[in-house]
C-alpha cells in the first residue's frame, strides 16, 4: 500500500455533512441558528453585476461634489402623508427581544441622525425606539406580539408583514434563553418558552381578505400613513402583483440572504430566492400592472454597501432595507471580548450565535451585563456613519453614471458579469448585447 497516496474524501458526504448527520442523530431535531445563510455554494448576487459609468456616450457629474439628490419618498399612491427620507437606505424590522434595548435605541438614534427610518419587529413597538426615531415603521405581524393600535397611530408607516427572506412561510423564532420576564410580558408569553411565532395572520389568509385588512389598517391610522406589504422572496412576480392589487403603497421583497436572529438552518439555506432575482421580478410585476413608479419597491436581503444599494436601485428598487449590516456597524463580529466568542465555540468574523442570547458584544442578547457592552451613543454614531457612508457610495455611483438623482439609476447602467446573472436579471452580459433566452 502506498502511504503517500492522498486520502480521498466524498464530495457528497463532506466533513460538514457528516457532522450534521451525526448531530441530528444525537439530538433528534434540526439545527437552529442565527445570522443568515452560511451556504458554502455561493448564491447569484448583486456582485454579479457591474456599472457602466459615463464615458463619451454620456457625461458624468463631478463625483465628489456635484449635487446628487438622495431624498426618497415612499407611499405616494394612497397615503395622505408619504414617508419622506433623506436617504434611500432604511433599517429593517428586528425585534426588541431578538435585539437588546441598547441595540434598538442605538439603531433609532443612528437612523434618525442619518435622516432615515427604523422598523419595530416581531415584538411590538418599543416606546424608546419611537422616541429616538425620526421616522418609524411599525410592523403588523402574524404573531401580533405587543400589537397596539395606539402604537400604529404613532407610526410614520405601517408594514403588514407576510413573511421574511430568511425563512419565508415560517414564523419567527426566539429561543427561551432570550424570553426574559420583560420580553415575555410585552409578548404575553410565559417567560423562558421557545417562542415559535405563527406563520399565518390570525384574521386573514389570502389576498381577498388582505384587501379588507389593509383598509382596516388605513381606517385605524386615518388613511394618513403608507401601508407596506413585506414578503420573503419566493413567487415574487405573482406575490408583488397581488400585494399591489390589494392596495399596498409600498412592497418589500426580502431575498433569501436576509438575516434572522434564529431559524432552522435548512430554511436559511434552502428556501426563497436571492435578492438579485427578486428585484427584477418585482419590477416586472409592477410594470405589468402599470404601477411601477406609483407603488414603491423596497429591496432587502444581504444589502451590505452603497454599491449593493445602487445596484438594487438600478434594477428597480426605490430604497433598501439593511439589517445584518447595521448590526455589524453596531459591533457584531468585532474582535472584542474574544474569550466569550470562544466560549460559544466561535470567533469574531464567524459568529452566527444570535440565537443563543449570549452575544459577546451586547447586540442580540437580553442579558443586562452583555448589553452593557454596547454603549448606546457610540454605537448610534457608528450606525449613522455607516448609513451616511453608504449614501455617499450610492451618490458616487450615480454621479459617475451621469445621474443627478440616485433614483435615476436604471438597468441600462448595469451589465451582468455572468451568464447566470444575465439570465436572471435580463441585463446583457458584459461585452455583448445578449440576454440568455432572448434573440
Amino acid at each position, binding site marked *: 500500500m502506498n502511504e503517500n497516496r492522498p486520502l480521498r474524501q466524498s464530495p457528497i458526504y463532506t466533513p460538514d455533512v457528516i457532522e450534521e448527520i451525526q448531530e441530528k442523530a444525537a439530538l433528534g431535531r434540526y439545527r437552529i441558528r442565527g445570522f443568515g445563510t452560511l451556504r458554502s455554494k455561493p448564491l447569484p448576487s448583486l456582485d454579479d453585476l457591474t456599472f457602466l459609468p459615463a464615458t463619451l456616450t454620456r457625461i458624468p457629474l463631478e463625483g465628489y461634489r456635484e449635487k446628487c439628490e438622495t431624498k426618497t419618498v415612499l407611499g405616494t399612491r394612497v397615503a395622505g402623508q408619504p414617508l419622506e427620507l433623506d436617504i434611500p437606505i432604511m433599517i429593517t424590522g428586528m425585534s426588541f427581544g431578538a435585539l437588546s434595548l441598547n441595540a434598538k435605541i442605538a439603531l433609532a438614534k443612528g437612523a434618525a441622525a442619518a435622516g432615515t427610518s427604523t422598523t419595530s419587529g416581531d415584538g411590538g413597538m418599543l416606546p424608546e425606539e419611537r422616541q429616538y426615531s425620526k421616522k418609524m415603521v411599525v410592523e403588523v405581524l402574524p404573531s401580533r406580539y405587543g400589537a397596539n393600535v395606539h402604537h400604529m397611530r404613532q407610526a410614520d408607516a405601517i408594514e403588514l408583514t407576510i413573511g421574511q427572506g430568511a425563512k419565508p412561510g415560517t414564523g419567527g423564532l426566539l429561543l427561551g434563553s432570550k424570553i426574559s420576564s420583560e420580553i415575555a410580558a410585552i409578548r*404575553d408569553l*410565559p417567560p423562558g418558552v421557545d417562542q415559535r411565532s405563527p406563520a399565518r395572520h*390570525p384574521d386573514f389568509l389570502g389576498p381577498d381578505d388582505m384587501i379588507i385588512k389593509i383598509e382596516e389598517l388605513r381606517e385605524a391610522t386615518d388613511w394618513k400613513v403608507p401601508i407596506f406589504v413585506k414578503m420573503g422572496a419566493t413567487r415574487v412576480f405573482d406575490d408583488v402583483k397581488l400585494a399591489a392589487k390589494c392596495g399596498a403603497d409600498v412592497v418589500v421583497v426580502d431575498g433569501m440572504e436576509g438575516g434572522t436572529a434564529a431559524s432552522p438552518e435548512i430554511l436559511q439555506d434552502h428556501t426563497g430566492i436571492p435578492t438579485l432575482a427578486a428585484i427584477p421580478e418585482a419590477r416586472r410585476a409592477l410594470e405589468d400592472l402599470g404601477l411601477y413608479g406609483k407603488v414603491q419597491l423596497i429591496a432587502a436581503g444581504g444589502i451590505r454597501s452603497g454599491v449593493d444599494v445602487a445596484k438594487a436601485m438600478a434594477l428597480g428598487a426605490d430604497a433598501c432595507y439593511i439589517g445584518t449590516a447595521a448590526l455589524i456597524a453596531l459591533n457584531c463580529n468585532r474582535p472584542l471580548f474574544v474569550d466569550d466568542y470562544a466560549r460559544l*465555540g466561535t470567533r469574531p468574523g464567524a459568529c452566527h450565535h444570535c440565537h443563543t442570547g449570549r452575544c459577546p458584544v451586547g447586540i442580540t442578547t437580553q442579558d443586562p451585563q452583555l448589553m452593557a457592552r454596547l454603549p448606546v451613543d457610540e454605537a448610534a454614531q457608528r450606525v449613522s456613519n455607516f448609513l451616511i457612508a453608504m449614501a455617499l457610495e450610492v451618490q458616487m455611483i450615480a454621479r459617475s453614471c451621469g445621474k443627478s438623482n440616485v433614483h435615476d439609476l436604471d438597468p441600462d447602467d448595469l451589465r451582468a458579469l455572468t451568464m447566470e446573472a444575465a439570465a436572471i436579471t435580463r441585463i446583457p452580459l458584459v461585452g455583448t448585447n445578449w440576454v440568455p433566452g432572448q434573440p
Partner: protein
Amino acid sequence: MDRVHRIDCAGRTVREINIEIRSELARGSSVAVANSGARHNLGVALLTSGRVTFDGSVGYYGAGMSDGATIVIHGSAGWGVAEGMLSGSVSVEGNAGNGAAASIRGGTVVVKGDCGARAGISMKGGLLLIGGDAGYMASFMMQKGVVVILGNAGDALADSMYEGVVYVGGEIASLGNDAVVSDASPDDMNTLSGLIRQHGLKQPRRLRKVVSGRKLWNFDHAELETWRAAL
C-alpha cells in the same frame, strides 16, 4: 340621560361613518348606527369610552382594534370581529365569522350565536364568551385570557396554546395538539355562572376546562450545553 347620535350608513363611505362615530364619542354621545349593511371595517379603532350600537350586521373587522368603547352589534359579524382589542366590550347578537376576537389583549367579546373557525385565535388576554358553537381550531395558539364556548367545539380545539384557558359546555369534536381537558372546578363554575347570567345566556349543565399540556412550550432538548453546541 345619554345623548344618542344617529348615523344612517346608506350612501356614506366607511371612512365618513367611522369619523362621525369617533367624533361623537369624543363629545360624550352614544352612537346608534343604522343600515350597517354588513359593510367591512365599521367601528374600527374606537379609542374612547362610550356606547355604539349597530342596528344590523357588520362585515370583516367590525369593531376591530378598539380600546374602551362598549359596542353592540344587533346582527352578525364577519371575520375578525373585535380583533386586536385592548379594552372595552363588543357584543354580537347573532353569529360571528372566522377569527372572532383574534389576538385581543383585553376586554370582553360576547357572541350570542355561533362562531366560525379559529375563534379566539392568538388571544393575549381578555374574554371571549360564545353562546352557541365554535368552529374548528378555536383558541389556536391562544396565549392568555379565557374563552367560554357554551355550545359545541369543533376539531382541533385549543391547539398549541400557552396560558389560555378554554371552557366548553357542549361536545368537543377533537382536541388540538397539546390540549388537556378536565372538568371545571366548582369555583370556576361559580365565576362563570355569574358571567353567563350577566349576558343573558343559557347555563350549561357542566363545563369542561381545556388548558395547555405545556409539551410544546420548549424544544425537547436534553440539556443546555448540547443545545448550545448544536450549531
